[in-house]
C-alpha cells in the first residue's frame, strides 16, 4: 500500500486538485456568509457539542431506547459488529425477498464497509442515485470530499463519462447533464425493490431517522421501493427531537452555507395503515465496525462529528493534496483524526502528520471537536506503537540532545549565524541542497539574534 506522501506527490498540482481547491474555497465562503447571518451560531455550536458528548457518554442507553422505538414503530433493528455482519444481513434480506434492483442514497458508511461489492457479488443490481455518487460509480472512481464526491471532476469528464456509459450525445452543460441523470434514474427509482440509505442523525426517543439531501434522491430511495434499509454508524444519534433541531441548525450552515438543505427528511417507521405510499418494510442496521474501540480510547471525541465537511474546506493541506491522497473513506482533518483509531493504526499512522496543526479545522467545526489535539494524540499513539513515520526520530533525538544542554545549544546557535552570509536584508533568497525546496518558491525569513544574545545586551 502507498503512503500518504506518495499519493499526495502524485496528485499535487494536477487539474483535479485545482478543481478541489476552488470548490473548497467556494464552500468556505458560503459557510462564512451563513454563519455571519446567524446570530445564534456560537451558542448553537456549544449546545450541539454538549448534546453530542452527552449522547456518546450514554450511548448504550440511547441506542437501546432507539432500538425499542424503531421496533414499536414497526421497523426491525439489526446490530452489526463489523462490515461482514452488516453486509451479510443486508444481502440476506435482499435475496430472501426476491430483490433484484437496489437504489442507494449517498452514505459514507456503506462506502466504508464496501456494501456495493457485497451486493453485486450476489448478482444484485446496485444504483447510486446521488448525482456525484452516480458519477463516482460509473467511472469506478472514489469520492474526494465527504459531501461533494466529485469535487475533483470537471464537467467535460462527466460529459464524456455519460456519453460512454449511458449512450447519450456528448454535452458538458451541467443543466443538460443533470437532465440526463434525472432521465436515467427516474424509472430505476420507480421500479427498484429496495432502497438503501445512510443516516445523518437518529432520534432515540422517537426511533426516527433523519436524512439530509439537496437532490431529493434520499427521499425517492426511501419512498418508492417496498423495502428501505437504513445503515447507521452506532454513534449517529441524539436523545430527542429538540436535540435534532440543534444539530440541523448548525449542519447545513457549516456544510454548504444553506440555512437548511433542500430536503430534511425525517422517517419514523415504515408506511402506516392507510398511508398511500412509502416502504412497507424498514430495517435499521446499526454498525460498530471499530467505533466502540474508538469510543473506549483516547480519541473518542472524534465520534461527535456530524460529517458536514467544513474542516476539509478549511484545511490548507486538504486544499493542496485533495481527497484521494488520504486513501480512506473519510478525508481531510476528520479523516486523519478518525481513521487511525477506527482501522489499523499500523496502516494509517502517517495520516495525522498530514496537517500543519494550524487550528483552522477546530475554528469551523460545528461541534467544536479539538481536531489538532486529536491529531497530536494520534501521532503520540503512532510513536508509542513504533509505527509512525520514523524519519523524524533521529533529527528529534539530535535536537533533544542539544536543547537539553545549554552550552551545546549556544554553540549551535553560533553555527546558525553562518547562515548570515546568505541573508539579503533580513531574507534568505537561496538555500543549497534540500533547502532549495523552500527557497525555489519563496524567501525564508532569516533568524534574528537569539533570546540569549538580546538578554545579555538588555538595557544597552
Amino acid at each position, binding site marked *: 500500500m502507498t503512503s500518504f506522501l506518495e499519493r499526495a506527490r502524485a496528485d499535487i498540482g494536477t487539474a483535479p486538485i485545482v478543481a478541489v481547491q476552488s470548490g473548497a474555497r467556494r464552500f468556505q465562503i458560503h459557510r462564512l456568509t451563513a454563519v455571519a447571518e446567524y446570530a445564534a451560531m456560537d451558542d448553537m455550536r456549544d449546545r450541539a457539542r454538549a448534546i453530542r458528548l452527552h449522547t456518546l457518554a450514554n450511548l448504550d442507553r440511547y441506542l437501546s431506547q432507539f432500538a425499542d422505538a424503531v421496533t414499536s414503530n414497526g421497523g426491525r433493528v439489526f446490530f452489526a459488529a463489523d462490515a461482514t455482519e452488516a453486509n451479510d444481513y443486508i444481502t440476506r434480506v435482499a435475496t430472501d425477498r426476491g430483490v433484484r434492483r437496489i437504489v442507494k442514497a449517498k452514505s459514507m458508511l456503506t462506502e466504508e464497509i464496501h456494501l456495493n461489492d457485497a451486493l453485486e457479488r450476489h448478482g444484485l443490481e446496485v444504483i447510486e442515485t446521488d448525482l456525484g455518487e452516480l458519477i463516482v460509480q460509473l467511472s469506478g472512481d472514489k469520492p474526494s470530499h465527504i459531501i461533494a464526491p466529485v469535487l475533483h471532476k470537471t464537467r467535460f469528464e462527466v460529459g464524456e463519462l455519460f456519453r460512454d456509459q449511458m449512450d447519450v450525445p456528448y454535452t458538458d452543460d451541467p443543466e443538460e447533464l*443533470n437532465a440526463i441523470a434525472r432521465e436515467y434514474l427516474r424509472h430505476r427509482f*420507480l421500479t427498484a425493490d429496495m432502497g438503501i440509505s445512510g443516516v445523518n442523525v437518529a432520534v432515540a426517543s422517537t426511533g426516527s431517522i433523519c436524512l439530509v439531501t439537496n437532490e431529493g434522491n434520499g427521499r425517492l430511495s426511501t419512498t418508492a421501493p417496498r423495502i428501505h434499509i437504513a445503515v447507521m454508524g452506532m454513534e449517529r444519534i441524539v436523545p430527542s427531537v429538540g436535540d435534532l433541531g440543534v444539530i440541523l*441548525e448548525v449542519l447545513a450552515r457549516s456544510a454548504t452555507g444553506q440555512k437548511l438543505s433542500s430536503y430534511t427528511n425525517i422517517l419514523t417507521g415504515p408506511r402506516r395503515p392507510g398511508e*398511500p405510499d412509502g416502504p412497507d418494510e424498514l430495517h435499521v442496521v446499526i454498525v460498530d465496525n471499530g467505533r466502540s474501540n474508538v469510543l473506549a480510547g483516547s480519541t473518542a471525541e472524534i465520534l461527535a462529528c456530524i460529517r458536514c465537511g467544513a474542516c476539509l474546506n478549511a484545511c490548507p493541506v486538504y486544499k493542496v493534496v485533495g481527497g484521494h491522497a488520504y486513501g480512506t473513506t473519510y478525508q481531510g482533518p476528520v479523516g486523519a483524526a478518525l481513521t487511525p483509531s477506527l482501522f489499523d493504526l499500523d496502516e494509517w499512522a502517517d495520516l495525522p502528520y498530514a496537517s500543519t496543526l494550524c487550528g483552522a479545522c477546530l475554528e469551523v467545526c460545528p461541534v467544536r471537536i479539538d481536531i489538532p489535539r486529536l491529531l497530536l494524540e494520534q501521532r503520540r499513539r503512532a510513536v508509542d506503537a513504533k509505527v509512525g513515520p520514523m524519519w523524524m526520530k533521529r533529527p528529534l533525538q539530535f535536537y533533544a540532545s542539544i536543547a537539553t544542554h545549554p552550552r551545546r545549544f549556544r554553540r549551535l546557535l553560533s553555527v546558525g549565524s553562518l547562515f548570515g552570509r546568505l541573508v539579503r536584508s533580513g531574507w534568505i533568497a537561496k538555500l543549497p541542497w534540500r533547502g532549495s525546496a523552500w527557497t525555489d518558491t519563496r524567501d525564508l525569513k532569516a533568524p534574528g539574534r537569539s533570546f540569549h544574545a538580546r538578554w545579555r545586551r538588555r538595557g544597552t
Partner: protein
Amino acid sequence: MERDAFLRRAAAGTFPDAEEVDPGALVPEGPAGDLVECFCDELAAAAGTPHRVATMDEALEVVLELMDGHHTFMARGHLPVPGLAGRLIHDGYHIVGSDVPKDAGERKRHQLDYESLEVGITAVDGLLAESGSIVVTSGRESPRMASLIPEVHIALATTDQMYRSLSHFFSERPGAVTQGSNMVVITGPSRTGDIEQTLTLGVHGPRQLHVIVIG
C-alpha cells in the same frame, strides 16, 4: 451480533466534561417583524416562488395559472382551497392516483404511471420564516410522492401556519415529527452543485416550488 453484547460495547465511552452541561434543546430567538414577508424573501432566496394572496379565490386563480400548459396532477385530502381537485378535473386535467399497492409487481406498475405526473398539489403543516421552508407530513390524505415526483410542486398554506424557525417548530409542535411515517422540511426546489458546483435545479425532485400563502 446479540443486542446486549453490542450495547455493552457501546457503554465504553467516558467523557468527564460531558455531564456538566444540560444538553437539552436550545431555541434561538429567530427573525422578528413581518414573518410572512421574511418567509417569502427566504423562499425566493432558496430559488422557490412565493405567492402572497388575500383570499381563497385568489389562491385558486394562482393555481389555475400555474396549471396552464400541464395536463396531469396529484392532489388529495383537505387542501386550504376547498373543491380545488374537483375544479381541476372539471377543467379537463387528469388526476393521477396516489394509492401505491402493496404487491411488489403492482407497486412498480402503479409507480411507473408517475413518470407522466407533472404537478403535485399539497397542503403544509408549517411554514418556517427564517429559512423559507415548508413542513409537510405524510398521512392518510397526504402522499409523500405529491411533493417529490412531479416537476412542479404547489404548496397551499395559510398565514396562521407560520413559525419563526425550525427550532421554534420543533419546540411548539413536538408531535409533528411522528404524526406520520414521514415528515419533510422542504427548502426550495430539488438542487445539486455536484458538477463543478454549478447550481442546477430539479435533480430528482421538483424543479419548481410554488408556495401560495393565503391570508
